[in-house]
């Protein structure tokens, strides 16, 4: 089965081609079926691979396909790598991907671009699988950029809205900034290790000293790549804007899979990062800062998808925080659980939006509990999971990270817990505003309210189940679990683990930590309940004056504006300056100046030709005298 791993990306590719070419001719049902089946087939193969790998003693396989680029010493094969990390990721991508495809058949059923949508989704799955499967950084980079492309395409899916198109462009460009870092890192990797193959690099790296300069630079650059892709500070602003895309896209790409690519990549390169503790430190700080920043922004957002988007950014921050403290397993654990509950939440939000006739402002919702019971229930599960309340999945993964953080730096832990408290608050705020209270929308919307079709609710239910039980793959020892995930992934992180101080928290401390965070989350939930259910508060209209902090949060700390005035506008005026002044006046002026100068010279030269014989002869005599003087001296 492992040798057939190429089938995994092939199916979505075929799906893409069929749907892409037949987008106008095939019927919607065929398209939907093709799209779903392609991913389902991949999922089945992935499952087979997973089972085989689990059973196998060897935990890492390389499946070469063909030589891709070779120039001199640079040889880049097109080959895939199957190990526990990629196998798990395959399952997540294809599994959740399938659910979201399924969901989309319902969600997008009225859209004119149905075929296009499915072809894009399939293409995304294809690239995501390339990213996951690539056996070297360059193949990974293909997927890396490819998912960026799909993200661009899908954010700008409704391209006639030019702000959506701008959001798409923004996403692509911000990703590209990271990609440049990634690319240069690849070059540096090549010069350092003379290869870009994981299988060649990691053993070599393992023998290097911690804090090696090359490693620090490589990891920093890789991290720049991860920042772009996984929407960390300072490149996170594209992700909230990316909510312009259809909601399944937000669920799949901008929550469950693509944005976690950065974490996947760092986890994949864990040995490099382990040996670059300085970089890890930076990662931790960036993650922490991002999680707090995003969490505080989410608190005041009124767009249901924006809340989820900032929540995603914030959760990604947790993952980076985890990576930063060396909790690779924990971070990856959180990737998995987050994929479950965040996909669920987005799909739920999509269901709400669907029901609300594309209304996204929570101020116009409320009281949807009764009309959308399945959606409410599943979303509540998701919310509990993300808030980190036991025993739902989010609890386990978040607390594993926080435990490592505590051991690493207690201040970080405090801040992390504060983030968790915020998370709980804004998530419940969202739930209460949407589902509790009375309906605040128009009558037309109210009239139209209905529960989503089963194609949409089934994925919700499945994901809800996963959100509940997903945490059990990594039950820590204190709960008597064997932490299956850690064991499964251990071949991947083994070398790193050997170079890292081991978790030495005693159980009582661990329990206290959990208790504190759970208590915090519960407190936040109660506060939200008090505020929005009991008092029935509704966030203020846009025009109402807000307090300084609230205004900062509500306006996302003006980060977009800061970027515009610091980068975009200066670049635009620089462009104008280069074009109009340097190019036109300066260089071209110089070039034209030669021509003009020649013409001017001509204008004055021709005056010499005065038409007067006397003058001509005088000039001749002048020349003759000059020549004679010359010969006088020369003799």
């Amino acid at each position: 089965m492992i040798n057939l791993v190429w089938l995994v990306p092939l199916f979505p590719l075929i799906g893409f081609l069929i749907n892409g070419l037949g987008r106008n001719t095939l019927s919607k049902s065929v398209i939907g079926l093709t799209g779903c089946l392609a991913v389902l087939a991949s999922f089945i193969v992935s499952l087979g691979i997973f089972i085989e790998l689990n059973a196998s003693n060897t935990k890492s396989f390389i499946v070469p396909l063909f030589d891709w680029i070779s120039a001199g010493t640079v040889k880049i094969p097109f080959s895939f790598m199957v190990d526990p990390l990629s196998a798990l990721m395959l399952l997540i991508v294809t599994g959740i991907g399938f659910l979201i495809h399924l969901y989309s058949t319902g969600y997008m059923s009225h859209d004119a671009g149905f075929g296009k949508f499915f072809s894009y989704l399939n293409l995304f799955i294809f690239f995501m699988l390339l990213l996951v499967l690539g056996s070297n950084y360059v193949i990974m980079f293909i997927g890396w950029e490819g998912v960026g492309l799909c993200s661009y395409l899908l954010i700008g899916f409704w391209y006639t809205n030019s702000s959506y198109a701008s959001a798409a462009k923004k996403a692509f460009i911000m990703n590209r900034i990271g990609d440049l870092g990634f690319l240069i890192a690849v070059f540096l990797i090549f010069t350092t290790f003379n290869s870009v193959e994981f299988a060649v690099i990691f053993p070599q790296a393992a023998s290097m000293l911690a804090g090696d300069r090359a490693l620090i630079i490589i990891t920093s650059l890789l991290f720049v790549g991860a920042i772009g892709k996984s929407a960390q500070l300072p490149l996170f602003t594209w992700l909230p804007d990316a909510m312009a895309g259809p909601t399944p896209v937000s669920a799949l790409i901008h929550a469950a899979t693509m944005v976690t690519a950065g974490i996947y990549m760092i986890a994949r390169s864990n040995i490099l990062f382990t040996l670059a503790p300085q970089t890890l430190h930076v990662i931790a700080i960036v993650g922490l800062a991002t999680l707090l920043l995003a969490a505080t922004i989410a608190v005041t957002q009124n767009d249901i998808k924006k809340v989820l988007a900032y929540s995603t950014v914030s959760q990604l921050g947790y993952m980076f925080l985890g990576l930063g403290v060396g909790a690779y397993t924990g971070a990856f654990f959180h990737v998995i659980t987050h994929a479950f509950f965040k996909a669920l939440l987005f799909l739920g939000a999509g269901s709400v939006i669907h029901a609300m006739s594309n209304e996204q402002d929570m101020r116009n919702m409320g009281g949807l509990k009764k009309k959308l019971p399945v959606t409410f229930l599943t979303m509540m599960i998701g919310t509990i999971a993300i808030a980190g309340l036991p025993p739902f999945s989010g609890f386990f993964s978040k607390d594993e990270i926080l435990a490592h953080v505590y051991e690493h730096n207690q201040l970080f832990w405090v801040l992390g817990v504060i983030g968790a408290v915020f998370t709980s608050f804004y998530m419940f705020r969202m739930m209460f505003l949407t589902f509790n209270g009375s309906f605040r929308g128009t009558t037309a919307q109210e009239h139209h309210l209905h529960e989503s079709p089963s194609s949409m609710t089934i994925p919700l239910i499945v994901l809800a189940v996963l959100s509940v039980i997903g945490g059990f793959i990594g039950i820590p020892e204190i709960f008597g679990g064997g932490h299956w995930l850690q064991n499964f992934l251990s071949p991947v992180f083994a070398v790193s683990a050997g170079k890292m101080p081991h978790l030495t928290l005693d159980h009582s401390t661990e329990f206290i930590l959990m208790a504190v965070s759970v208590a915090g989350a519960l407190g936040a939930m109660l506060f939200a309940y008090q505020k929005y259910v009991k008092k029935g508060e509704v966030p203020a209209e846009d025009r109402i004056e807000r307090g300084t902090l609230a205004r900062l949060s509500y306006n996302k700390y003006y980060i977009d504006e800061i970027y515009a005035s610091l980068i975009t506008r200066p670049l635009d005026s620089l462009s104008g300056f280069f074009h109009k002044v340097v190019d036109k006046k300066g260089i071209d002026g110089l070039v034209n100046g030669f021509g003009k100068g020649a013409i001017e010279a001509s204008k004055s030269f021709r005056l010499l030709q005065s038409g007067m014989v006397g003058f001509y002869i005088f000039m001749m005599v002048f020349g003759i005298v000059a020549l004679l003087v010359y010969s006088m001296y020369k003799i």
Partner: protein
Amino acid sequence: MEILLLQIFIPLIAAAVMLIAGKSARSLAGVLSLLPLAVTAYMYVNFVPDASIQYLVNLPWVPQFGINFKAGVDGISMILLILTNLLIPIIILSSFKHEIKNQSAFYALIFFMQSGLLLVFTALDGFLFYVGWEIALIPIYFICALWGGQNRIQVNLKFFIYTIAGSLIMLLAIIYLHLQTPNNSYDIAEFYKLNLDSSTQGWIFWAFFLAFAIKMPVFPFHTWQPDTYTEAPTAGTMLLSGIMLKMGIYGVIRWLIPVAPLGFHDWGLTALVLSIIGVVYASIIAFTQNDIKRLIAYSSIAHVGLISAGIFAWNMQGLQGAMIQMLNHGINVVGMFFVADIIIRRMGTRELDQLGGIAKPAPKLAIAFLIIVLGTVALPLTNGFIGEFLLLMGVYNYNIYFAALAGLTIILGAVYMLRMYQKVMLGVTNERTTIFSDIDTTEKSVLLIVSVLIIVIGIYPQPILHISEAAISNLLEQVNQKILVQ
């Protein structure tokens, strides 16, 4: 019959045929343009990808001056032959949509130019190279000036004089080298053998570089280019950007650096820096361009700057990247200008501000355009990525900071390309663009060829890389040895 002579002279004969073809010139041109491609295909099939020169032709031309008609094909030339003979049919096909006045002359000039280009890419004799160099220039001047836009006369005059100024300086260098050879020959092999002192090589380097830099164009010799691209008829722009500027790049690889290795050693860094400045500078200018052709023109400067930087980094990756990127850039820029032409022809405007939402009435065009844009911004699995990856790697091997600067093209390219795509294709349609009709069969076939090439090369570039590998590594070694000896 020497196959290479056939290759070079078939276009010339085609040009002659065109002149007497009259009304049927258009379709005849389409058919005739396939002949050189067929010859190239034959040559490619029989080509052995080692460092040797194949299909060598060596006929005495003006023996008393040491001038021979010496031409041959190695891996480097092969790629350019493919490029030229592949693009010319596409360009001719793309011109079918235009009502061209005096079309027989138009196609005759294109074929004439093709001959010149093929001469440049195969010449192994300095004089022959120069002759080809200029022959390629005359027809394009006429194409641009006869069928161009409003300001064509002024703009092309500048272009012509500018480029010819550069090439005349190059001629001096060629003659000078000729005089230095022991047996007064123009043979490139003799030029390679020369051991001139480094100051002499310095000025020879600059003499050649000036000619090539103007042709490519490298910052700050580029100001003719946006105007010319904008004013030229689309076929002319395609010829200029798709093939002609490769003359400069090819010249750097084949003539400049191997002939003046010490000059390169002393001045290569300067050239590299200029190239990289060009990348960033042109990209930034492209940000705010409102004229679609001008925007593409500036983007071309940026891309060529990167190619040039890759060459001046002078290592395997950079050179191989340059080789494949020459092909890629040719394909992409031709596609890009073709799309621009479709839009300009239908809309009657080049202003981005007046376009928008074309994707809705013309989804096929939108897809093709997107593929071309992606190829241009070097998305993986498109041809552009292979080239830029290798080029950046080459520059990186030279200096990491240069690579970082040149790498900005990845970001900046995306910025202006996507801006253009958005402004043209996305957004709501306005009253102009709603009636936009999607591409027809001819256009579709051109765009299909271009798109397929973009993706196929992107997925499987190895056959192309393989062509030039041995030749490049041989050249590299030769030059490095000379520099080392010094």
